[in-house]
C-alpha cells in the first residue's frame, strides 16, 4: 500500500516503529506481593519493596514470567530460555528505587512477527524486535497543590511488558492496525486487558521521514500516547513537522517529544541531554531467569486459538471475506458470539446480522457484546425465521428492534404482532387484483413498455400487506398478472 505524504518538494515516506507498554494481568506485582487492582486509595497497594525501603529484596512473580512467555509464543517470537534483569538508572519522584528494574541485553523474548489487518482488507507482516519485562513507575499528580506534586506508588512495581516493533509501519493506519492486533492478541491470551483508558496499554511512537527508497531519517520518539486515535494524530502531526523542517533546509534533532491532543501538536520534552544515560547493569539483587524448554512447551498448550488462526478458519469454513473475518475475530467474545449465531445457519447472513444490525445497535448505545440485549441464541432464532420464510428480511429488522427493546424472542414477537409472512398465493393474488383494478393508468404504462413501473406495484402490494407479503412471490405473481 503506497501511503506517501506530499510535501512542497515531492513525496515523503513515513517510517514508524512502536514500543507498546502492556500491563500484565496478574494479581500481584512483578517483584512484590502487593495488589495490582485499579483505582485503590493512594499508597494502599504498596509493599516495602515497592517503596524501595533499604534492605528489601525483589522476588519475581512466576505469573509475570508465564505471561511474557505466552505472549512471546503468540507473537511468533523466540522465547529466550536465559534472560537477565538489569537496572535502568534515572531519578524521578515516582521511581523510589532510583532505578527501574527492566531487561536490557538479555530480554525474555527475542524477534518475532505478526500480521496486521488493514482497512482495505489487505494484510501486512510487522516484525517484533523484542519483548522484555519491567516495573511500572508510580503516578504523579500535579493538580492537587500549587507548588507540590503528589506521588502515589500503587502502580510502582506493577509488571509491564514492553513490546518493541521493528520500524516496519508506513502510515498512521498501519500503526493503528498494529496496536489493534497486539491488543487483540493480548486479550485473547489473557496477558493484558488492553484497557487504554485505565493505562493498561500505552505506546511510545518512533517517527521518521525519508524520500522513498533512501536511508532511514533521524527519528523522534513521542512518549506515552494513550489512545489509538492520539497515536494516529501524533504520527500525522509529527511527520508533517519533520517534512517542513527538512524542506526548509533544516535537520531533525533526535529527541523525545510529547503529543498534546488539545493543541494538535508534538513538542519537545525539556529534559536534559544526560537523561538517556541510563547506565544499565545486571541487577545484583536478582538471579537470571532460566527456563526449561518443557515449561515453554507446557505454556504453549495453554494458548487459545489466536485471532489469525480464527480468521483463516472463518474464511475457510464460513466463506467470509478477509475484512469481515478480521472484524469478527478482533475480540474473542465477538468471535464466539458470531460462531454461536452461524452454527447450523447461513454463515454470511449471520455475519451480516451480527456486523450491521447488532454492532450498529451496540456501538450506538456503547454496550459491550457481553452485555448485548439480544443473545446469540435469540439472534439465531430470528435468522431461522428468515431462512424458513416465516418473515421477510425487512420485517426481520422490525422484529430485531422489538427484541432489543423488550428482550423477547423473535418467534414470540412474530406471533404476537401477526408479522408472519404471507406466502399464500391466493391471498397475495387478491391484493394484486385490487391494486391492478384501482390503477388502470399504471397498468397502461406497464403494458406500453415502461416495465420499471413494476417496482411501484410491488411497493403498493407490500404496503397493502403491511410488509408481510413474501416479496419474491409478489414479484412473480405481479409480472404474471401484468403480462396476462
Amino acid at each position, binding site marked *: 500500500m503506497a501511503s506517501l505524504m506530499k510535501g512542497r518538494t515531492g513525496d515523503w515516506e513515513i517510517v514508524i516503529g512502536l514500543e507498546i507498554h502492556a500491563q500484565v494481568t496478574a494479581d500481584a506485582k512483578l517483584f512484590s506481593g502487593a495488589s495490582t487492582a485499579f483505582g485503590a486509595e493512594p499508597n494502599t497497594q504498596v509493599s516495602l519493596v515497592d517503596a524501595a525501603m533499604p534492605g528489601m529484596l525483589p522476588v519475581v512473580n512466576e505469573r509475570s514470567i508465564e505471561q511474557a512467555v505466552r505472549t512471546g509464543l503468540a507473537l511468533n517470537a523466540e522465547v529466550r530460555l536465559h534472560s537477565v534483569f538489569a537496572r535502568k538508572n534515572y531519578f524521578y519522584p515516582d521511581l523510589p528505587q532510583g532505578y527501574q528494574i527492566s531487561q536490557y541485553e538479555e530480554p525474555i523474548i527475542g524477534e518475532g512477527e505478526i500480521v496486521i489487518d488493514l482497512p482495505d482488507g489487505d494484510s501486512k507482516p510487522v516484525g517484533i524486535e523484542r519483548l522484555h519485562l519491567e516495573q511500572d513507575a508510580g503516578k504523579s499528580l500535579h493538580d*492537587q497543590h500549587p*507548588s*507540590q506534586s*503528589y506521588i*502515589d506508588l500503587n502502580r510502582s512495581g506493577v509488571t509491564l511488558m514492553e513490546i518493541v516493533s521493528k520500524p516496519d509501519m508506513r502510515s498512521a493506519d498501519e500503526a493503528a492496525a498494529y496496536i489493534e492486533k497486539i491488543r487483540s492478541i493480548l486479550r485473547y491470551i489473557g496477558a493484558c486487558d488492553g484497557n487504554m483508558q485505565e493505562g493498561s496499554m500505552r505506546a511510545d511512537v518512533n517517527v521518521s521521514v525519508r524520500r522513498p527508497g533512501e536511508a532511514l531519517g533521524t527519528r523522534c520518539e513521542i512518549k506515552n500516547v494513550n489512545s489509538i486515535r492520539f497515536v494516529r494524530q501524533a504520527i500525522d502531526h509529527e511527520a508533517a513537522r519533520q517534512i517542513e523542517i527538512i524542506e526548509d533546509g533544516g535537520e531533525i534533532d533526535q529527541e523525545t517529544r510529547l503529543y498534546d491532543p488539545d493543541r494538535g501538536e508534538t513538542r519537545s520534552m525539556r529534559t536534559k541531554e544526560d537523561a538517556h544515560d541510563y547506565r544499565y547493569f545486571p541487577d545484583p539483587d536478582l538471579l537470571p531467569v532460566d527456563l526449561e524448554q518443557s515449561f515453554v512447551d507446557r505454556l504453549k498448550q495453554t494458548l487459545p486459538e489466536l485471532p489469525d488462526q480464527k480468521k483463516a478458519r472463518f474464511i475457510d469454513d464460513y466463506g467470509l471475506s478477509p475484512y469481515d473475518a478480521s472484524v469478527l475475530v478482533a475480540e474473542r467474545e465477538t468471535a464466539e458470539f458470531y460462531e454461536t449465531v452461524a452454527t447450523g445457519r447461513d454463515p454470511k447472513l449471520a455475519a451480516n446480522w451480527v456486523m450491521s444490525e447488532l454492532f450498529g445497535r451496540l456501538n450506538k448505545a456503547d454496550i459491550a457484546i457481553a452485555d448485548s440485549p439480544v443473545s446469540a441464541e435469540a439472534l439465531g432464532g430470528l435468522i431461522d425465521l428468515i431462512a424458513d420464510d416465516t418473515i421477510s428480511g425487512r420485517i426481520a429488522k422490525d422484529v430485531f428492534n422489538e427484541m432489543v427493546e423488550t428482550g423477547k424472542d423473535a418467534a414470540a414477537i412474530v406471533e404476537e404482532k401477526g408479522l408472519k409472512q404471507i406466502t399464500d398465493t391466493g391471498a397475495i393474488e387478491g391484493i394484486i387484483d385490487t391494486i391492478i383494478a384501482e390503477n388502470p393508468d399504471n397498468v397502461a404504462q406497464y403494458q406500453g413498455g415502461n416495465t420499471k413501473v413494476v417496482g411501484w406495484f410491488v411497493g403498493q402490494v407490500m404496503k397493502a400487506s403491511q410488509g408481510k407479503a413474501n416479496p419474491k412471490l409478489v414479484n412473480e405473481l405481479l409480472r404474471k398478472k401484468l403480462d396476462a
Partner: protein
Amino acid sequence: MSIDKATVAKIATLARIKVPEEDREALAGELSNILGWVEQLSEVDTDNVPPMTSVVDAVAPKRKDAVTDGGYRDRVTVNAPAAAKGFFTVPKVVE
C-alpha cells in the same frame, strides 16, 4: 582507562551527588586508579566464558501470584520528608 574532571562532573550529576569543583581533580585520579586496578581482569582470557551475573549457583526463586503484602500506607509514608492525604509530596515536577 583514565577519567577526567569533566567525566567526574557528569557522573556526579547523573548520580545526584554534589561534588565541589576543587574536589574533582583528586576524585578523577582516585577513580582512574580504581578502574586501572579492575582493568587487570582483562588480562584473563575470557573468550567462550559466559558472563557470570551471580556467584550463587541457584535458580532464581519465584513467588506465587498472590496478594500477600501492602495495605499499610502509614508504614510506607512514615519516613517521607513530606506527605499529605496519603500521598508522598515533592516540589512540583512538571514536564
